[in-house]
């Protein structure tokens, strides 16, 4: 059965009425999920929806149950997030675990901070963007029911992150990666403790939000969300490899970003801890690349990933080797 027919059958069962599917297309965004946008019409009304299905292969192996629980919980916060309609964790409906959400208004523009908008507009968007990141960290995760869902690693969130990404490395690596052995050794020797535990988005960036005009209408892609040290997200967004997404040269640099975040959360940022999390961010990126390489050679991913030697070179600089 074709995907459109499967979607129609699934939704028809959920709404108790015949459903017509139109305009089904896979979007190019998203490396860890297949994203399919479509219109679904029932009872005379058309709904703009998006189905997110686990891919055959991916650059990330993540838990759909976690994503679902976090998205549902975020509905009770001030963090704009997608409206979840239906979930099939067992993969019965579309062949693989999937969920269907309302298509939130707005567009996804990964490089909006360096796009064509006037500079003051881009700076204003940057402020709103990283206010949303601060809002994620300020969420009372116990109050919205995430305590039983997510593992609380405090006060060793840093070492838990190293354990997680080293385990991922062992799971996916096709070849020895001695560069990462060196960096993992450094990370274990310098891991900072965390005295604050928050929801960590895990992949926060302009490419994972929807902009409706100047307003952030939704924060997307919660599949890597977990509890941990909020500085993990700060290391991710201040990583020099991601500067095209997160910085406006000379105007919105890491200093401005961190000041905005500290101003909203009231929490200072220790520079040594930030540097540690920037190193972790690039280990994570390296493992994501290696995951993609494995999926590619196993014919489960249709994008090609070369060895992450450029990331390794940066990591050597970051650890002062």
């Amino acid at each position, binding site marked *: 059965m074709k995907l459109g027919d499967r979607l129609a059958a699934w939704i028809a069962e959920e709404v108790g009425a015949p459903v017509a599917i139109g305009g089904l297309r896979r*979007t190019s965004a998203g490396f860890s999920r297949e994203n399919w946008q479509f219109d679904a019409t029932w009872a005379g009304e058309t709904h703009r929806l998006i189905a997110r299905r686990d891919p055959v292969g991916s650059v990330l192996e993540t838990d759909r149950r976690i994503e679902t629980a976090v998205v549902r919980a975020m509905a009770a916060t001030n963090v704009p997030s997608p409206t979840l309609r239906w979930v099939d964790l067992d993969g019965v409906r579309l062949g693989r675990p999937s969920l269907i959400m309302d298509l939130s208004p707005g567009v996804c523009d990964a490089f909006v901070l360096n796009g064509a908008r006037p500079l003051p507009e881009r700076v204003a968007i940057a402020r709103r963007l990283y206010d949303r990141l601060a809002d994620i960290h300020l969420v009372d995760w116990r109050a919205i029911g995430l305590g039983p869902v997510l593992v609380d690693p405090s006060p060793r969130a840093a070492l838990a992150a190293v354990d997680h990404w080293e385990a991922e490395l062992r799971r996916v690596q096709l070849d020895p990666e001695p560069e990462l052995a060196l960096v993992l050794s450094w990370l274990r020797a310098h891991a900072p403790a965390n005295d604050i535990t928050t929801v960590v988005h895990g992949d926060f960036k302009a490419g994972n939000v929807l902009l409706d005009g100047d307003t952030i209408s939704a924060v997307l892609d919660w599949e890597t969300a977990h509890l941990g040290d909020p500085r993990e997200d700060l290391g991710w967004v201040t990583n020099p490899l991601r500067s095209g997404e997160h910085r406006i040269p000379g105007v919105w640099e890491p200093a401005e970003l961190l000041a905005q975040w500290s101003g909203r959360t009231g929490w200072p940022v220790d520079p040594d801890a930030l540097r540690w999390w920037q190193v972790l961010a690039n280990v994570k990126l390296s493992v*994501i690349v290696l995951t*993609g390489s494995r999926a590619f050679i196993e014919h489960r991913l249709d994008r*090609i990933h070369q060895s992450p030697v*450029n990331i390794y070179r940066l990591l050597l600089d970051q650890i002062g080797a």
Partner: protein
Amino acid sequence: MRPTVSEQLTGIAHILAEVVAPEITDPYPAAVLAGARATLELLARAWTDVPAFLCWDARAGAAVLALVGIPVPAGPDDVLDVAALEAHHREVRGLLEGSMPAVLADDGARAALVQLFRDRAARFPLNARPDGGPGAHPAR
């Protein structure tokens, strides 16, 4: 032997660009095709450098291991036997990975290792950012 391997790879990339790409309007397959074309062009430019890189990298890794007394089996006699070169290269890299505590405990070996890592990043023949994906270009 014409067309050479490089010429064939370049030619296939050209066919994809001129014949196939204009017919593809959906963004997802268009992005996938762009990545495949870029990789073909990279291979056409760089595949001939791969055997020499494997030889050099394995030799340099063995030299670092020698500083901490770890022996490395000899490489293949035929430097054009790419499969054997790949296997030997993987073996040396595995020894480096497994010997990290010993290497890091020796200042001279540690410095040599870091220099090797920097040199190999500079020499890596398939060093490219072909398709805008996270591996190719983390800032997607």
